[in-house]
């Protein structure tokens, strides 16, 4: 945990996770890139609209009986609406939690910079190798980054289009996200609302 000040408005900034790459100032909504030298302004964007959500930045509680803390979220807009990808600490480990139209998925396994086939040729129902894992693509879609809030493990500038794949592999839900610069794969499981207990 380290304490700094927002490079834009001077508000106090407290980084709780050492892996966080971007912090969104809660006062002025400036996106601040976390570097060894301090906080660099990446841009200033509007605050995210408030939609009903199980979490807020700073929420604590348990997921599947394990303690968690919600650190921040990225919001994506797609044809069916929007979804939030929460960066959380779960039992001391990094994890990601997506909230999509009232459905929840917990991703605990992250595979960064994986090698996968050309996204344009991939279709629903196709098998692809992601790293050493064989996954079956359930859906391919496009989304646009709307913005962020709190601490972010990944950072994609608002307005950037991402291609995502929803897939399954070895009994797990798999999500693959493509941006211009990298490809990440998450593996996890769906959650029921009752699996999530938020304190307060």
């Amino acid at each position, binding site marked *: 945990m380290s304490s700094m000040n927002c490079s834009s408005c001077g508000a106090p900034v407290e980084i709780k996770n050492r892996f966080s790459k971007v912090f969104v100032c809660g006062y002025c909504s400036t996106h601040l890139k976390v570097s060894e030298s301090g906080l660099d302004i990446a841009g200033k964007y509007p605050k995210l609209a408030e939609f009903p959500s199980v979490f807020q930045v700073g929420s604590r509680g348990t997921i599947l009986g394990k303690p968690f803390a919600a650190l921040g979220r990225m919001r994506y807009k797609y044809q069916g609406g929007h979804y939030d990808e929460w960066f959380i600490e779960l039992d001391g480990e990094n994890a990601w939690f997506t909230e999509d139209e009232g459905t929840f998925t917990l991703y605990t396994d992250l595979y960064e910079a994986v090698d996968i086939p050309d996204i344009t040729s991939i*279709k629903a*129902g196709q*098998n692809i190798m992601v790293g050493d894992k064989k996954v*079956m693509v359930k859906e*391919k879609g496009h989304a646009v980054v709307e913005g962020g809030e709190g601490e972010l493990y990944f950072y994609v500038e608002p307005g950037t289009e991402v291609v995502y794949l929803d897939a*399954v592999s070895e*009994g*797990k839900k798999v999500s693959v996200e493509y941006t211009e610069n990298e490809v990440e794969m998450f593996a996890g499981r*769906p959650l029921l609302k009752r699996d999530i207990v938020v304190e307060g």
Partner: protein
Amino acid sequence: MGADDKKELKALKCAKCGGDLVKGSRSHYDDEEEETVTIPVARCIQCNTEYDQHTSEYYEVFADDLTYDKDSTVFKLGLKGKLKGIEYEIIGRLRYQEEEEYEKSTWDEWVAVSEDGVFHYFVEEDGRIDSYEEYIPESIDMESSGSSIEFEGKKIKKSEGYIGRIVLAEGELPWTPEIGEATLCYDFKKDGLNYTIEKTDDEVSITKGEKLSHGEIIDAFNIGGYKDLYANTLKKRKSFRWESRIYLAAMLFCLILSAYSCLGDKPVPGVMNSKSIFMNNSPVNDAEGSVYESQILYGPFDIPEGDKLYNVSVQVNQQVEPLNLEWLSFRFMLVGESRLNDLSEGKINDSALLGDIFENIDALPEPLESYVIIGDFWDEEGRDSDGYWHESDLSYDTDFVLDDAGKYYVYLELFSNNKKDVNSVVFAISQSKGYRYYIVIFFVFFILWGVSKIRSRSYNELPFEMSE
């Protein structure tokens, strides 16, 4: 904007010329049916382009034919309830039509959202309800094999897939469907559970489900108006089930009685023990030419009981003289000894007098016989489009009820196109236990059983279809 509004706004226009589309039909020769069949198609009134059931336009045009009963369902949008401890709200509905069917063959997928934040699907088809939710398989491979899908070690033949087309969309749905949108579906069972894989161009959906009763749904969603109707329907069906069981038992009882009766036929002894031959192959000229006539009187013999069912069989004894490409007609008369005695004024042993009586039997003012059979035996051959054929009919049997017991004679009159040995036609009389009556009663019970069985499944006071 709801999906339903979108459907309303979509104009039914020809993709080629923009003309209006209307319902039409097309006739063609079907190789499988081996006849000309007429199928419905959507047709452009301007350029005459046809849209069959493999196109979205077809479903736009025929949607009303496939959704006229959309309100005959147990579910309604907005229903809230608690099923197996979880709260659900019905938020949307899709109706699909099977693409390969010209007749209406639809099912509804009701989309519900649970308090747990999970989309849930209640599928209502042919009066059956299944509850489905997303499933993540341990392994699935839809493309490695051209002919099958591997699903957790189970092979599902791709040929078992069928295409469903959306014909109705209403409420809130996780995506924006289009009327006519196609989904390839595979339904299968594994370890006693139902699974469905639905594949569109953009998405694969895998769900696992189980059957639910209408009672569970009515209770869960507290659909009060249907509770009594459901209870009455179940009660009536149960009563029909019991009826069908009773009829089944009655059928079995009839079968047992019938089998017992078949084994219990009692032959009347000595019916052919003595005979008098009045005429033996005498040539007779009739309108069709010359035939041979024989007259034989058999008896007397005892018929042991009156007012009973008897069976008589008359047949050609092929061992005595085969019937070979010829015909033989017979008249069989059962004559009571007392009647013959009256007619012969007590001279029943006068063979010449009896011969005269039977010679003129058809001129008697009152019938002499107690029972009569007239029949033909024949043996023929020929050729037709299937080639050579050879057929014959060499026996005849029937049941009759004889009122009085006593001594009887059988008068047998034979006509043939060739001379025939009078011993070549034999007969037997037996007292029957009446198995045929039991068979008739069996079929009556069978029909009653069938009706009860059908009603035990189909009786319904509810305003929607409900299977067992």
